[in-house]
């Protein structure tokens, strides 16, 4: 950049104004006329009006002066400018081909490549994230199904258990009730038997003492049983 500024400043500093370029028509005419006058007067130091008149009317001199009005064709290229312009372009071309262009294009390509790679990586990351999301969603759906299944299973098990327990409890109760009834019945029978034995023992003893008879034991027992039956029949 500094080089660019220096080159710009050098153009401004060294190049004169446009009017300084070449000679003007007036100076050209004056110069040619002076040359012709000197040529005409030869060795003489003084210029006479005759000399001026002669030179002014000389056709050859007039042709020379007319040439001053003919500007050089602006379309014809100047050799020095071709040399400098051509050399400048050639030098720039070498610099650009060897260094400038590859450096800039390389940086652009590297950037494009980086952006492409980043986009690819982002795309890959997005795909991965989507896959993970799908995975999680599937897992979540599985978990929901599983939890529903477990809950249903537990519910069924609980129902079953409740039913079983209820049936079992009812059976136990019935069994216990039956057992209790049987026990009551057995105890009742036992109590009756015991009472009967007791009463018969007591009655036998009493009868023995009262009657003092020689009844054998079997006859006594029959009498007692008959007595008891009578008693129970009258009580019942």
């Amino acid at each position, binding site marked *: 950049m500094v080089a660019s500024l220096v080159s710009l400043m050098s153009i401004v500093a060294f190049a004169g104004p*446009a009017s300084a370029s070449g000679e003007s028509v007036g100076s050209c005419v004056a110069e040619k006329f002076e040359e012709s006058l000197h040529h005409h007067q030869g060795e003489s130091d003084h210029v006479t009006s005759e000399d001026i008149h002669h030179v002014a009317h000389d056709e050859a001199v007039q042709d020379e002066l007319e040439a001053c009005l003919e500007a050089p064709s602006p379309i014809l290229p100047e050799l020095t400018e071709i040399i400098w312009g051509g050399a400048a372009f050639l030098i720039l071309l070498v610099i650009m081909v060897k260094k400038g262009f590859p450096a800039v294009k390389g940086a652009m390509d590297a950037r494009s490549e980086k952006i492409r790679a980043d986009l690819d990586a982002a795309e890959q990351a997005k795909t991965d994230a989507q896959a993970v999301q799908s995975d999680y969603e599937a897992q979540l759906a599985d978990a929901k199904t599983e939890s529903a299944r477990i809950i249903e299973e537990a519910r069924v098990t609980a129902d079953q258990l409740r039913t079983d327990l209820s049936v079992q409890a009812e059976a136990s109760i019935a069994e216990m009730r039956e057992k209790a009834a049987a026990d009551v019945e057995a105890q009742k029978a036992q109590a009756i038997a015991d009472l009967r034995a007791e009463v018969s023992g007591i009655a036998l003893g009493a009868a023995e003492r009262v009657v003092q008879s020689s009844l054998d034991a079997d006859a006594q027992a029959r009498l007692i049983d008959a007595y008891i039956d009578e008693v129970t029949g009258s009580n019942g």
Partner: protein
Amino acid sequence: MNVLALDFPPITHLFEWPDILFNGTWYAVNKTSLIYMAAVVITAAIFLSAGRKKTSLVPVGVQHVAEAGVNFIEESVVMETIGPEGKKYMPFLTTMFFFILFSNIFEVIPGIQFPANSRMAVPITLALVVWLIYNFVGIRSQGLVGYFKNSLFPPGVPKALYLIVTPIELVSTFVVRPFSLAIRLWANMVAGHLLLVTFAILTAALWDATYVGAVAPFAMLILMTGFEILVSVLQAFIFTILTAVYIGGSLHPAH
């Protein structure tokens, strides 16, 4: 020169510059040569500076200029005219575009105000280089006979018409083309420079005479300065895209 009571400088005074260095030699340097050197320095500085910067996601500073230029040449010139195989000509076309652009743009740079391409030297040199390149490319890709046959006898044209078409193609492709390329650039820059000088002289003369009268030509001067910036870019683009079209034509003969 006195035109409509205005002191208009002779045409040579607007375009011919005195030698600054090596006066009178074949390697004499004048203002035009200095502008060409400046175009080299500026273009090289932009590209070398842009190329040295670290590649960032967003280009900064001169990288914008260089990359926009390269992108423009690639998308709007090469891909539009030659196609992907034209990419190998991109360094040449990019160099040409920037060299012409900076040589032109000095037309509106204060203190310099001269388009170097309003001198015929570089336009004709570049046009001849282009002529050599597209003919070389044509001969290399189609063979000597094939290239001239396709150029002079375009396929699909009724045979009787070759009597007319072939001489026209011969003159237009091999003779006129480089000159039309050079003259288009040169004449546009000459015309632009003359326009700016005319309005500048009008403004100065009317300012001296009436003050108020200078307003209109001064407004035109500003307008034309903007227009000439456009012309400078446009002419660089036209020269470059025509070069690409000629190379493309040599690579792909008309079907």
